[in-house]
């Protein structure tokens, strides 16, 4: 395995690509807890339109993840004194296992689950009834979906990655099984482990697992042309049973390919710090939002396929006009809200905070998985962020001020 010690963090990790295409990563830590992640290089969006002549409906990735990490699997993992969790993002799907004992026994449970495909149509229907109906009551799902629909003309990112109950009606176990054969295979998979073990112990443990082979499937790629120069609607409203009104505000970034041409790897370093510097830790922004009888409830940067957006959600007491006006003015020239001292303090904080995250196997692997979606090791990003220059960041903000924006209000 190849050892890399990046970013002067004193946190080395080991990596290897096996003959079958499976990637493996060990991040050794002297801790009692051991964590493992099965990383699937395919998230909820975008995926092939057809696999082996079957249409792949929206939401299939999300439901498949839930079938693999089903209540039954979680119970089996509990018997092995392990916490099992799973998550579908736009770009990847992950299965996470945390234990104070042997991590390879729970890893075997999940890998066997993937190899055996033991769920039925009845299991899928039961999940839809039990969880998707209840989740539709969450006001944030329609709020963010409404915003993405405003921002994008045709890109499937408009749907998010979690289907509603109505959307899930089209998803059947047979399609999910084809999806699994296409994406849950060695060459699309990375197994990451963090805990007190050597690379040879890691490889020995992995040798006992059933790794799914690379099966050839016939796929039809999903093709679409999104216009990144503008948004579909700059503002629209929706109605939902909520106690407080919610405003979602988004910035639509250019096609990822174009951004990467302009910024290269620097882009991912900027993504790490842009939200706190501009929003969640920016006093000028927070005070401005408060002056409109509103508060910032959350901010996120979402990436999937060629799409990238910044999404802010607010709770607001009154009509959204004052907040929308403030947001429009604030984004007219974002460089005006950048302070050199604050920038340098935040970069220092980010570096130290990464050490905090890297000390926990569970959190460290989540950081590695998130960075893996952009094919960069997490510790490399941390090292680069600590060298991020004020002028590069300022250039990015200057361009960010010019990107199209949209808002969606739920009363």
């Amino acid at each position, binding site marked *: 395995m190849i050892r890399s010690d990046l970013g*002067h963090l004193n946190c080395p990790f080991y990596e290897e690509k096996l003959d079958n295409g499976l990637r493996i990563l060990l991040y050794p830590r002297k801790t009692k807890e051991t964590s493992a992640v099965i990383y699937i290089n395919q998230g909820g969006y975008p995926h092939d339109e057809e696999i082996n002549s079957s249409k792949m409906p929206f939401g299939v990735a999300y439901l498949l993840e839930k079938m693999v990490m089903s209540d039954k699997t979680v119970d089996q993992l509990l018997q092995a004194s392990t916490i099992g969790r799973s998550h579908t993002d736009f770009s990847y799907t992950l299965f996470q296992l945390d234990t104070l004992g042997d991590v390879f026994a729970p890893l075997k449970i999940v890998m066997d689950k993937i190899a055996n495909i033991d769920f039925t149509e009845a299991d899928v229907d039961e999940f839809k009834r039990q969880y998707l109906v209840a989740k539709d009551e969450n006001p944030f799902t329609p709020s963010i979906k409404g915003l993405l629909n405003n921002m994008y003309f045709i890109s499937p990112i408009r749907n998010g990655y979690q289907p509603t109950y109505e959307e899930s009606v089209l998803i059947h176990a047979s399609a999910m099984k084809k999806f699994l054969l296409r994406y849950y295979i060695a060459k699309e998979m990375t197994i990451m482990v963090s805990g007190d073990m050597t690379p040879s112990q890691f490889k020995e443990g992995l040798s006992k697992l059933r790794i799914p082979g690379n099966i050839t499937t016939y796929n039809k790629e999903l093709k679409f042309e999104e216009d990144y120069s503008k948004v579909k609607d700059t503002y629209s409203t929706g109605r939902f049973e909520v106690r407080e009104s919610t405003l979602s505000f988004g910035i639509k970034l250019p096609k990822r390919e174009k951004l990467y041409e302009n910024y290269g790897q620097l882009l991912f370093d900027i993504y790490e710090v842009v939200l706190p510097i501009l929003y969640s830790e920016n006093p000028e922004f927070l005070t401005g939002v408060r002056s409109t009888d509103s508060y910032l409830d959350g901010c996120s940067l979402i990436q999937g396929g060629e799409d990238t957006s910044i999404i802010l959600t607010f709770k607001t007491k009154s009509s959204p006009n004052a907040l929308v006006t403030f947001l429009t003015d604030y984004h007219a020239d974002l460089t005006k809200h950048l302070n050199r001292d604050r920038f*340098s303090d935040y970069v220092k904080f980010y570096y130290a905070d990464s050490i905090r995250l890297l000390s926990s196997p569970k959190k460290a692997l989540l950081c590695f998985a998130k960075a893996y979606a952009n094919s960069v090791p997490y510790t490399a990003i941390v090292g680069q962020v600590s060298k991020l220059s004020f002028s590069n960041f300022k250039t990015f903000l200057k361009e960010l001020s010019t990107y199209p924006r949209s808002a969606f209000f739920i009363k």
Partner: protein
Amino acid sequence: MNSQNYLYSDSFSEMTIKRRIYLTKESTSPERLAFLAYLLNDSQVKKNKDRVSSYLGGKIVFDAVYYGDGYLLTASLSQVITKAFSYLFVDPFKKGRELLIKALSDGFSQDKNVFSGLLNEFVMKNRKKNSSYDSIRSGLGVPLFSLSLDIKALSSLSVFDVLNTLRECQEATTGDYLYFGPAMKNDPLLGLPPFKNDLSPISFHVLNDTPISSPYFSDETVSYLISFGKVTDHNDFFMIETALESLSLALKSICDKQFHSQIETNHFLLTTDKAILALTFKTGRIPSNIMSLLKTNALISVDPTPYVDDAIKIMNVRKIEVFSDYDDAFSLAHRGYSLGLKLSYDILDYEVPKKEKIQAAFKSMTVLQSYTAKKGGDER
């Protein structure tokens, strides 16, 4: 308890110093103290220079909680432990401690617009809280739990009110410091100004045992005050927690099978011999046909023995969570310390209890009282 206390764990690359300042019930109100903590946190974000964040990822966070007959204002400084930094002229830990003290002495911005903007935001955030279980915990004044706030009293706070509470905190003579993290070469609490009087281990006095109601509750909760044989260390603590978990699982099963009602359960120790067990009805209201089960004398006749194995599995999961999350670990250490438990060198070094011991613990349990939080009535 001493004014300076050390709780060690080698499982994380982080350390926290918690400054705990005690105020009597007469000297302030929950609304004043909770909002003061909120204002002080905002002052940390707005600081223009000498920000703690640039010293080993420092963070200072204020909080206000119940403690015995009064309240605590806590200020927690956390910093990363690493060799990856070199400060030529500044000791980042010493600097962190200085800023921890300064954070309270500096106070908050008295600008009228800033104050009213933050108050408005704080009111909005508190108004949306709709968990009946949380209301029981705060309504009872459970030690170390967030203060229960009256929205009307909160909305009418003035700068003067909060300044008075700030002065009370600055001049407080009862309090202590807690250190949580790995053992360090130099004393991590060195140079911190001592308090005249130490804090006592927590006691619990029911502040309010009348039913709580709110039109905004999304669910309803019934909870029980349970007494048991005194616990002395973390092993005992987890034995009682596991016994309560078994009882919770038994009640869940009865509610499901006999009454077709889905419940969520929670339990926590109030003192070394008393705990709360809460049942929350997620579907909305407490069904009327279940009331016979919920009487205190009926509760104790429930047999939790068949559920002990499953409870042990759940406690194993909790142990994993404690090792993987610094905040959970510190919260556990803080509770254990505040209860006055005898703590081992590594605070997280405890055993998940054996079945026989848990069964013995059931025999020492008595239900003393019950409390409810239901939908209806005026907004608190």
